[in-house]
């Protein structure tokens, strides 16, 4: 039973109007900066704040800017690799925790939660020191030079994404009725068949949601990436962060609008995708 079903307890009158007003203000708060950003990205005035007229110049400038294009490419490469690997590893972690009892399970559970709690600044520091030490060790052992770059960024993104994927998939697994899996086993399905035909299709929305979260977090990250990236290997957010700190130019508005619209399309797509899979 949910709140909406209760007839006598639904807020009415002044209370209801106050609640509704608060809700509209929250939505205004959420969307006003986004709208301002998008509108100003079409502003022909060099001074970002004052509207002068419509232009697409900043978008054209963005498409001519090789640094922007390279960082977009870097972002996409890192996001795709880290999403695929972290989704596979995170799903395995969720399955192991939710469906099995094994020695060291509690320790594994704690290890899985920690990266979510650790602040990204600490995570950034940890990974930087780790890569620097590993590079030193590898140089001493084999003479190979390891540099900070797309590989270290991708490895870092996987490290923080595994936990988020695992949490999302776990929630889905915990909500699934084990009766169906038992029924499949009773009907002589072997373990693999049960997993392939019953467990996997049921947990798929969770896996997709986890993958999408990983993709978003990877495309979003500034702090960790800026610590573990080398020259020429910055991602789009790190590049934009640098621009923002050096001063406001309308180019940032155009790049930001593109990032914003891209992620909104991703979220909206995921919502539509999950709807089509029926009510959950």
């Amino acid at each position, binding site marked *: 039973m949910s709140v909406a079903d209760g007839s006598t307890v639904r807020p009415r009158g002044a209370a209801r109007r106050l609640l509704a007003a608060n809700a509209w203000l929250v939505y205004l708060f959420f969307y006003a900066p986004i709208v301002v950003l998008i509108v100003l990205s079409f502003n022909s005035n060099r001074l970002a704040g004052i509207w002068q007229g419509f232009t697409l110049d900043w978008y054209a400038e963005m498409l001519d800017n090789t640094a922007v294009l390279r960082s977009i490419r870097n972002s996409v490469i890192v996001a795709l690799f880290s999403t695929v690997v972290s989704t596979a590893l995170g799903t395995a972690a969720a399955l192991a925790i939710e469906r*099995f009892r094994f020695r060291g399970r509690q320790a594994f559970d704690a290890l899985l*939660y920690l990266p979510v709690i650790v*602040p990204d*600044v600490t995570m950034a520091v940890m990974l930087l020191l780790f890569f620097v030490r590993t590079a030193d060790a590898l140089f001493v052992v084999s003479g190979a030079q390891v540099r900070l770059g797309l590989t270290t960024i991708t490895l870092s993104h996987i490290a923080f994404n595994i936990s988020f994927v695992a949490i999302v998939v776990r929630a889905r697994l915990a909500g699934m009725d084990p009766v169906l899996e038992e029924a499949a086993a009773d009907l002589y399905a072997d373990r693999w068949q049960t997993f392939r035909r019953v467990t996997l299709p049921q947990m798929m929305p969770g896996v997709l949601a986890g993958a999408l979260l990983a993709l978003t977090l990877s495309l979003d990250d500034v*702090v960790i990436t800026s610590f573990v990236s080398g020259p020429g290997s910055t991602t789009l957010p790190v590049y934009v962060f640098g621009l923002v700190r050096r001063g406001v130019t309308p180019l940032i508005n155009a790049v930001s609008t593109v990032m914003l619209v891209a992620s909104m399309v991703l979220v909206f797509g995921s919502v539509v995708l999950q709807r089509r899979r029926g009510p959950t």
Partner: protein
Amino acid sequence: MAQTLVPDPEASPEADAGLEHAAAAERSRRGAWIALPPALYLVLLFALPLVIVLVYSFATRGSTGQTILADWNIASYTRLLNPLVREIALRSVGYALLTTALCLAVAYPFAYYIATRSLRVRNILLVLVMIPFWSNFLVRTYAWRLLLSSSGPLSQLTEAIGLGQTRLLFTPVAVVLGLVYGYMPFMILPLYAAIERIDLGLVEAARDLYASGPRAFWRVTWPLSRPGVIAGSILVFIPSLGAYVTPEILGGSKTTMLGSYIVRQFLSARDWPFGSALSFVVMALMLAATLIYFRTGGRTL
């Protein structure tokens, strides 16, 4: 053991237990194998780096910014007690607490409002929360910079109605506003989940027993929603405390928070031992907050 593997309709309880035991051992082995790849990854790229940070925090900074590992000491930790660090730490905790309180004050009625809509409307309202939440954090924070700048829309509005220019950018107000904006959904979602789950029969029962609306809320709804309140508060408090991007973009030199201070130790001061000690302590604070959360019975993380 061989005979216990053959199912026997008249098997003794002991044989049955033996069979289950064998099955459990088998399940245990498979579970451990499935857990192995993610566990190895996290040990290598999370646990080991954590140990390295701990080791560095006891090292010494050399005169040219290099780190000397040989000479172990606690100088980096004693430096945490100096007035500048204390000021930054207190400011961070203050901003994080204020952010949490503001989020709770706004998000509770908001979540309650959503939870009392029909299922269809509820889903739409929730998606409208998720869309900005899932879009790039840096970009959303940067948007506030445009909105708050002295030539920006908000300032033009206040000027038009005769209040003069707003000079909020690069002040503590802008930082807290940015943090509230960035982490509000972390408060809304657990609150919504908790309130939506409440069995309204209990509230109705309270009303039937002549409790007034506010009294029924205070004695029934609020205590039942407490897991959501605690979960949301911790989920907002933790990232606010370690925030880096928001104070960098919206704050000025007087709003430095722990996150920025740590980054500065690594990227400009090149004092890795001190930076390591700081980040280790911040992490310990957050772990403590999380443990309190689990102790109080929190489940949704």
